[in-house]
């Protein structure tokens, strides 16, 4: 008697499982050890976007994920594919972006023999993912993919890795696709404790000078509306971390902007003066707190976060509420409304108004009227509110953080934790794949842009037009700024004497390029660039010694801001 088995290859099962998860696009580069998966992708409706370097593939998936809220998918081959991809995956891990990274692997019979293009990918990725899987049988694949998406998209979101030995891709098995998986050691749905939230509310109402510090967790959990309602009902000012940019509309009267090394003067001052910091979805990075002993020295810290290991990790927390932020904040807001009273905050409000009105619209220490802050303001005026902006890493990023006002969640995409140069341009392409309906702009520096500029080929090839505005100082600007401030102006390896002509570079890729020398020229070029159907590089030569201020030096506290080179 025959039992007819419905056999399916591992690669078919992988692609089918991705389809079941609703994946519509994957970013990657093929290679020997992942060819069966690529062959199977041809039979699928999943769009594949071909990168030109695996690091960019991961950044594209990252930009896609941050713009859409979905899990981004990137694919690379074994060995160098896996190691190149790793920088992008680590970037996503530091910023808690939900990502699935798939790498090829040599066949199981060839593993641990130093085979061609073999690397211990699980060994590497374990340290930069929520989990790294290596299915050893084709029949393991459907469960593994479901588990990967479950892990990536729940709790504190983050990247997950699947390493696919080639024989597991080609081998066949009967497949069962689970709708649900149970991972015994992973319990992301811990309901918030109402008693803990009540304590937090008491502390808030008893405070005299409360301030909200909103981080990336607010955006990721979708808690931004509750947070804003709370702030508005109670009239509490809101500062954000870099990752929290966009959690509240930055043109809102209660929005203070960024706190930290390059925070706004008013945000840094007011955090410093607060007696209670309601920290929501933040991890108190060293770039936010600066010298911890001087961070909000008079304040009690009330910390809401989905990840219990964040509590007390970097700063001393007086009270913590762990669990899903959206439910926590909804409950906090409800309780606040039931109490129907606010704190006694009249004097504090006057102080907040005073500091904000003094500093809010000021641009400190610029070299000319064509300095980056003015360019960024012009960009904001010309971009619709739902446009997406990504940044590279360095001065461009900090100018953007300080002077580009973000109006909606998920429209500001930057590498905060890892600070990965080369992030912005491929991330913009990924964001464009998620949101073809809105303009996507990479605020770039020349140094950072050059790390992944070969993504121009992807942008043109895949018809994912984005705009890169290169604030071009022909140097590694942030390092040069530190050399000016701390190394006696000794420019060790920071000056580019032979930058390419970015206009002709763009044209050689089939993209458009323009160089502008005034704000008016910039406006006119930018206006058409964001409507162009091909990538546009706008080269903006800026003063080579332009610095980003305010600046809190390393080891300093938030109230020790430099507002220019020399005077405080």
């Amino acid at each position, binding site marked *: 008697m025959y039992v007819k088995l419905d056999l399916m290859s591992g690669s078919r099962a992988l692609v089918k499982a991705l389809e079941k998860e609703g994946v519509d696009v994957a970013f990657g580069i093929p290679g020997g050890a992942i060819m069966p998966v690529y062959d199977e992708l041809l039979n699928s409706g999943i769009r594949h976007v071909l990168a030109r370097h695996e690091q960019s593939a991961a950044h594209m998936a990252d930009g896609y994920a941050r713009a859409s809220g979905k899990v981004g998918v990137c694919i690379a081959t074994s060995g160098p594919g896996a190691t190149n991809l790793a920088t992008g995956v680590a970037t996503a891990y530091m910023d808690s972006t939900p990502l699935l990274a798939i790498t090829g692997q040599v066949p199981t019979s060839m593993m641990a023999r130093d085979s061609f293009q073999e690397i211990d990918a*699980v060994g590497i990725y*374990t340290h930069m993912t*929520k989990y790294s899987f290596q299915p050893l049988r084709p029949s393991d694949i459907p469960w593994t993919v479901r588990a990967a998406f479950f*892990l990536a998209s729940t709790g504190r979101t983050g990247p997950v890795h699947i390493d696919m030995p080639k024989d597991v891709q080609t081998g066949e098995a009967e497949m069962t696709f689970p709708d649900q998986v149970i*991972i015994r*050691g992973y319990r992301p749905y811990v309901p918030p404790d109402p008693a803990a939230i009540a304590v937090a509310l008491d502390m808030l109402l008893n405070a005299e000078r409360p301030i909200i510090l909103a981080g990336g967790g607010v955006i990721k959990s979708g808690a931004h509306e509750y947070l804003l309602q709370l702030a508005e009902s109670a009239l509490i000012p809101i500062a954000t971390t870099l990752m929290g940019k966009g959690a509240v509309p930055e043109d809102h009267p209660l929005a203070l902007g960024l706190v930290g090394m390059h925070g706004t003067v008013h945000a840094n001052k007011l955090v410093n003066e607060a007696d209670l910091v309601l920290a929501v979805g933040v991890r108190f990075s060293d770039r936010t707190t600066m010298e911890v002993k001087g961070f909000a020295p008079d304040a009690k810290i009330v910390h809401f976060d989905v*990840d219990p290991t964040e*509590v007390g*990790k970097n700063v001393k927390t007086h009270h913590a509420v762990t669990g899903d932020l959206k439910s926590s904040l909804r409950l906090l807001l409800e309780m606040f409304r039931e109490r129907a009273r606010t704190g006694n905050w009249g004097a504090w409000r006057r102080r907040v108004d005073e500091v904000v009105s003094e500093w809010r619209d000021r641009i400190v220490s610029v070299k000319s009227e064509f300095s980056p802050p003015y360019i960024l303001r012009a960009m904001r005026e010309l971009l619709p509110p739902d446009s997406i902006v990504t940044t590279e890493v360095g001065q461009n990023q900090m100018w953007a953080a300080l002077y580009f006002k973000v109006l909606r969640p998920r429209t500001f995409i930057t590498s905060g934790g890892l600070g990965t140069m080369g992030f912005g341009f491929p991330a913009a392409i990924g964001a464009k794949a998620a949101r073809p309906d809105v303009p996507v702009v990479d605020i770039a520096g020349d140094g950072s842009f050059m790390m992944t500029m070969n993504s121009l080929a992807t942008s043109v090839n895949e018809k994912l037009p984005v705009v890169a505005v290169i604030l071009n100082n022909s140097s590694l600007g942030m390092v040069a700024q530190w050399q000016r401030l701390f190394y006696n102006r000794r420019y060790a390896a920071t000056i580019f004497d032979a930058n390419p002509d970015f206009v002709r570079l763009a044209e050689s890729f089939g993209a458009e390029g323009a160089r502008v020398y005034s704000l008016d020229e910039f406006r006119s070029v930018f206006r058409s660039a964001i409507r162009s159907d091909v990538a546009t590089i706008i080269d903006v030569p800026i003063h080579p010694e332009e610095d980003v201020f305010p600046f809190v030096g390393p080891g300093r506290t938030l109230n020790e801001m430099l507002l220019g080179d020399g005077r405080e």
Partner: protein
Amino acid sequence: MSGENAVIYSLTVENKPGVLFRVASQFRRRSFNIESVAVGVTERPDTSRMIITMRGDEQMAEDFARVLRRTVDVIDVSRMDPSRAAQRELALIRVKSGGVDVARGVGGEGELRVLGESGEGIVLQVVGSPSYVSSLIDALDRGKVLEEVARTGVVALEVS
């Protein structure tokens, strides 16, 4: 690490490849020194127990328990109070002639057996509290009869 107290973690973990690597990585990243680790399967074949001991202060031990708990393959983490946990360790010790008498002279919570004797020396089996095993080894060393030691690390269960 300062504020040195004995810290005992009891972890219930998945019984599959790579779990010890994931757990050990968390110690390594923080430069925590594992003093002993004992791993064995539990009453369920898909589940193992790891008993890991190190030294550290209270706050650090509690914070780190949360990190271990977050590790995906770790199902449960408990910290054992050293004063309430039954702790046992096994050691096989090769001694020179005369070593048996030295060992028998050591008091404490444990048992001693002579497993065998050859030209290479005498092999003792010692089962007992970690302090008994340690003081026995110290005594053999002081008596200059100690040749070689293999210890299992501590296994522990809470008694009360």
